[in-house]
């Protein structure tokens, strides 16, 4: 009995080890094969579209997930991130479906009037694939950060173009312009933006002369920490407008710097602060704690009385070209410049 059990045990272990090794090897192969297949498929798609290029209405759009061929002018568009929904409205196009906004659900107030009949297809992080399929779209605008793993399924529903991020509002406009066959409109929107940027730069420099450029920090208070948005949406717009970033930033490689310790308050230092936060008692108490700290009172913006609370949606969450223009409007007003 003893011997029998013991032998069986050894046998079992050998079986386990052997099987698992075989399995691992098998799985590895499988992955490679399926990837190779995908590549082949992509190749065939590419050659097909080259042949078709002569037909007027077929376009090849290059994007973060490869190249997608789009025929004709898409009319039923689904936008899967806030910035894309915003951009669609800027194009004067009403999407058939869009993801729910983070606040002011279902859509941000500044877009609500333009999106009255739009179907909500779930949240940006997990849009509902069945809802999207039901809408029978002919173009889907997605983002790699959010939708990389469902890209194949989205593509099975409709041609899908994907951007790397969610806040690069200008790239979103060009990508969507290309995908929707509205390149001219896209150029117009972007030219308009560039002109406004130049106009702002000229006027702000004229007004402040040598004081310009200011250092600006975009701050956000959370329930348990504070953040500096170095790049991202607001940060990139401010630097495009000629603002300089925080004065004593120790690490400028990060998009968002999370400060968990009040001793790092000095990292925030700048001539002017734009801060936004959620309307929540816990956040407010953090804000109170941080702003009562002695180091806070030493910051230049605090001494100059240049701490401004701004709209969280326009400055951070919306991430589209319309929001960018609204943020610029806000800056014109705050510096008392003529638009």
């Amino acid at each position, binding site marked *: 009995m003893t011997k029998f059990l013991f032998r069986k045990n050894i046998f079992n272990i050998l079986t386990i080890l052997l099987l698992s090794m075989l399995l691992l090897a098998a799985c590895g192969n499988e992955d490679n094969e399926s990837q190779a297949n995908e590549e082949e498929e992509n190749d065939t798609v590419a050659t097909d579209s080259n042949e078709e290029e002569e037909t007027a209405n077929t376009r090849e759009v290059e994007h973060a997930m490869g190249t997608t061929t789009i025929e004709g002018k898409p009319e039923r568009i689904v936008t899967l991130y806030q910035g894309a929904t915003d951009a669609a409205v800027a194009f004067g196009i009403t999407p058939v479906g869009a993801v729910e906004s983070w606040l002011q659900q279902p859509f941000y107030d500044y877009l609500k009037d333009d999106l009255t009949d739009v179907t909500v297809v779930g949240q940006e992080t997990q849009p509902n694939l069945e809802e999207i*399929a039901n809408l029978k779209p002919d173009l889907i605008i997605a983002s790699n950060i959010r939708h990389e793993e469902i890209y194949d399924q989205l593509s099975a529903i409709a041609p899908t173009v994907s951007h790397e991020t969610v806040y690069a509002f200008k790239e979103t406009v060009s990508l969507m312009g290309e995908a929707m066959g509205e390149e001219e409109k896209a150029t117009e929107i972007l030219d308009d933006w560039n002109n406004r940027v130049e106009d702002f730069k000229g006027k702000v420099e004229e007004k402040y002369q040598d004081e310009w450029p200011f250092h600006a920090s975009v701050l956000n208070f959370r329930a348990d920490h504070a953040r500096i948005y170095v790049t991202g949406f607001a940060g990139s717009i401010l630097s495009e407008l000629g603002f300089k970033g925080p004065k004593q930033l120790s690490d400028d490689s990060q998009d968002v710097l999370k400060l968990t310790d009040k001793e790092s308050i000095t990292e925030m230092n700048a001539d002017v602060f734009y801060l936004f936060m959620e309307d929540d008692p816990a956040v407010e108490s953090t804000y109170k704690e941080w702003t009562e700290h002695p180091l806070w009172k030493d910051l230049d913006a605090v001494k100059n009385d240049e701490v401004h609370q701004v709209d969280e949606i326009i400055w951070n969450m919306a991430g589209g070209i319309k929001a960018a223009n609204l943020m610029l409007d806000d800056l014109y007003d705050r510096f008392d410049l003529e638009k």
Partner: protein
Amino acid sequence: MKKEQSQPLFHLFKNRITWIILSLLACLFMVTIVSLSVGSTYISPIEIWGHFLGQGGGEYDFTINMLRLPRLILAFLVGAALSVSGLILQSIIRNPLASPDIIGITAGASVGAITFIVFFAGTISISWLPLVSMSGALVVAVLVYLLAWKQGVTPIRLVLVGIGIAAAMKAFVMMMIVVSETAVTTKSYLWLTGSLYGATMKDVIGILPWVVVFIPLAFLLARTIRVLELGDELATSLGVNVQVIRFSLLFVSVVLAGSAVAFAGGIGFVGLIAPHIAKKLAPNVFHLLVPIAGLIGGLMVMVSDLIARTAFLPLDIPAGVFTAGIGAPFFIYLLYRNRHM
């Protein structure tokens, strides 16, 4: 798969057990039908039948073949794997609170997955994520085992070292989440909650071999588990090589939990509650507990995901939010019902 399990049992075991398994299979069948029917578009069971017979012109090809079916199968496999993994751990550690979360397996997989999401997402294809998180689970399990080794591994050392390592891993995960950008944070949290969202047939094929090989292995090893439950001295005196058996069981458990977590993220509570439900339903038949626990675990995750994706349409919520919500009340009911027994 359903038939294979029920037929040999029919001859060998008492009626009660047969009935339990048959009714679980019936539940499985019903949940399958309901899950395939409901969603944003309702497809009647008759139409589903037609679809599988090839009638109906393929109008549901996308909804059923690409969305609902893979998700359903993955849910079942993940649930079954977690449940059997938990069952084995509870027996070898001889602690009813043991589960893959406790001895660091889930935490190890999380470290793998979150490291991947934070540092490599975008540069390396996301299809490597399951492999990375499974390696994380294995590495941590080996670490726990080695650290717990002191002329053999005793259950209590395994638990203590496991809890310690799990805590360290969780701290590491939190640190990575805190230092990463907002979008990545959201993605990491979704993964940690555990979701079957976006499941494809590729995922199903990825997890299938592990489950198909290691659950039957657990079944084969199960006879010796009962002896282990008597305690190391007694088991050794009965002629069981305790260390060898414990190592193989632990290995099976790690592989099952690791593969489940790799494909569905940190779905919690199934590995803890499903085995208990199985034990309450069918006490004192350990080798049969493996299929029963597997079925219950699979059902739990299937029902959770069904609720998660339909209750708040059009929102699609991570199934991990509901696993405890489904399992715990039923468990409490069983405890309540059995309290006079």
